[in-house]
């Protein structure tokens, strides 16, 4: 009798653990599916690229443009050149095994979520050629396995976070064609990066820079006809975007 009770309780325990694991796995998979579904909800998808993204499925691993590992956890999201618009979501940070986030060449706007800093397995972050605004979050410095960081051709502002210099795995950095300001770090991993990575911003040029603007003769006294126009000191600036940081905001005067 006692033995039967032991056997029954033992098998119940095993069963419940098994079921519990199944539920856990399903819940985990669903979290990732929910995260990606939140992304889909925030996107306008005129080409129906995300048609296969069915949130009722157990895992997102059968969705097109999503790749999972052997444990059904998302490792890649490949949505480059997909004509997507809309904004990124903070839930993107809930993909703990994500290695490749490819969202380049779309019309995505809004900020880069700071939660992307939670993607500690991320190897490639490609958000280039979009309409992203706001700053580069210092949390990206937590991405200790990051090799490719390409945020070029957006409208990002603010400074380059120093925390990125601690990401020693960084191999390719492209921040060109944005509106970044401040200094260009040269320490840590940034020793590998040349002006090519920082072209066309409003960053402070490093010491080895083009000659400073030449200030010619002081402005001549204005005549009555042109007294409406703004009078400023004449400055000849080389057609070099880095040196253009000295330029005031531009207006088109006819």
């Amino acid at each position, binding site marked *: 009798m006692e033995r039967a009770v032991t056997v029954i309780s033992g098998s119940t325990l095993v069963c419940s653990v098994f079921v519990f694991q199944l539920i856990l796995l399903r819940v985990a998979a669903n979290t990732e599916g929910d995260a990606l579904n939140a992304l889909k909800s925030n996107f306008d998808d005129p080409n129906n690229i995300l048609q296969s993204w069915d949130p009722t499925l157990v895992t997102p691993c059968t969705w097109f443009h999503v790749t999972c590992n052997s444990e059904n956890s998302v490792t890649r999201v490949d949505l480059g050149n997909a004509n997507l618009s809309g904004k990124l979501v903070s839930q993107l940070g809930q993909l703990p095994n994500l290695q490749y986030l490819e969202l380049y060449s779309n019309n995505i706007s809004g900020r880069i979520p700071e939660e992307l800093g939670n993607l500690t397995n991320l190897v490639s972050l490609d958000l280039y050629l979009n309409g992203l605004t706001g700053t580069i979050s210092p949390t990206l410095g937590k991405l200790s396995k990051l090799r490719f960081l390409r945020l070029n051709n957006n409208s990002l502002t603010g400074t380059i976070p120093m925390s990125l210099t601690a990401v020693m795995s960084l191999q390719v950095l492209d921040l060109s064609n944005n509106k970044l300001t401040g200094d260009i770090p040269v320490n840590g991993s940034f020793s*590998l990066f040349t002006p090519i990575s920082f072209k066309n911003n409003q960053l402070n040029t490093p010491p080895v820079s083009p000659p400073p603007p030449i200030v010619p003769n002081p402005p001549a006294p204005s005549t009555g006809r042109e007294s409406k126009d703004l009078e400023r000191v004449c400055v000849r600036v080389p057609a070099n975007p880095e040196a253009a940081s000295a330029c005031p905001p531009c207006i088109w005067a006819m």
Partner: protein
Amino acid sequence: MSIVCVDVSKACLLWVCDSKLRIVAIFAGASVWLLLSCSLSYGVESDINCLRSIKETLQDPRKVLNISWNFENNTEGSICGFIGVECWHPDESKVLNIRLSDMGLKGSFPLGIQNCTSLTGLDLSSNELYGSIPSNISKIIGFVTTLDLSSNSFSGEIPENLANCSYLNVLKLDHNNFSGQIPLQLGLLGRIKEFSVANNLLSGPVPNFINASNLITADSYANNLGLCGKPLRPCTSASKSSNTGIIAGAAIGGVTIAAIGIGIGMLFYFRKASMMKKKDDDPEGNKWARSLKGTKGIKAS
């Protein structure tokens, strides 16, 4: 005078305008914009020409480039799949790194690389390349961070101009036939983390690397003709300079000894001469004195 400020694709051009020049300014601005946008797209086409010229100037007996580097399909990013080519972005023909190590390539330094204007890494190691490194190397690969030309047959001097490649982190020139002195200006490369010129025919003092003196060991200079200076033995007690020192010292010593000898000899000679002269003078003097004494003596008493 009024200022026209023209926003030209994120570059800002300011110049003086009055009402007469306004039209000229607008026209100039538009043409600059056209030029800029042209240069952006031309930069990509130039990368294709860069790779094309590498293929044309290097001999490829193993036919490694022959198969992979196919220029017939000119779609954007097609060169990014070429063997040894790494692009900045997978779908844009902008070359980031060229790695052609151990491919049996023969020829001289491919000057056409200048057209890969965004190149940061060049590895041509373990091939059969010969000739010298171009003297205007920083104009050809000015942004390079890794340059590996090791294990080839490059010769001639290491160009001074290499010191203008200020972004260099890794510079490997070992196992070649480089001769002459290492340009001391290489010590100004502030980002150097790895440097080797071992196994060459170099001589003279080694550069003093301002930012990496602890990273550069004697191994960086091993197997050359006569390099000296920290971390190697000091240059002042090097064999060549000590030889001349010994010769100079011996010469000076010999001259000094000879001069002293002559001086002593002359001293003796004159002493002897003066002594002999005294003896001759004395007899005459005495006779005179005695004759004088005689007469004077009588008078005195």
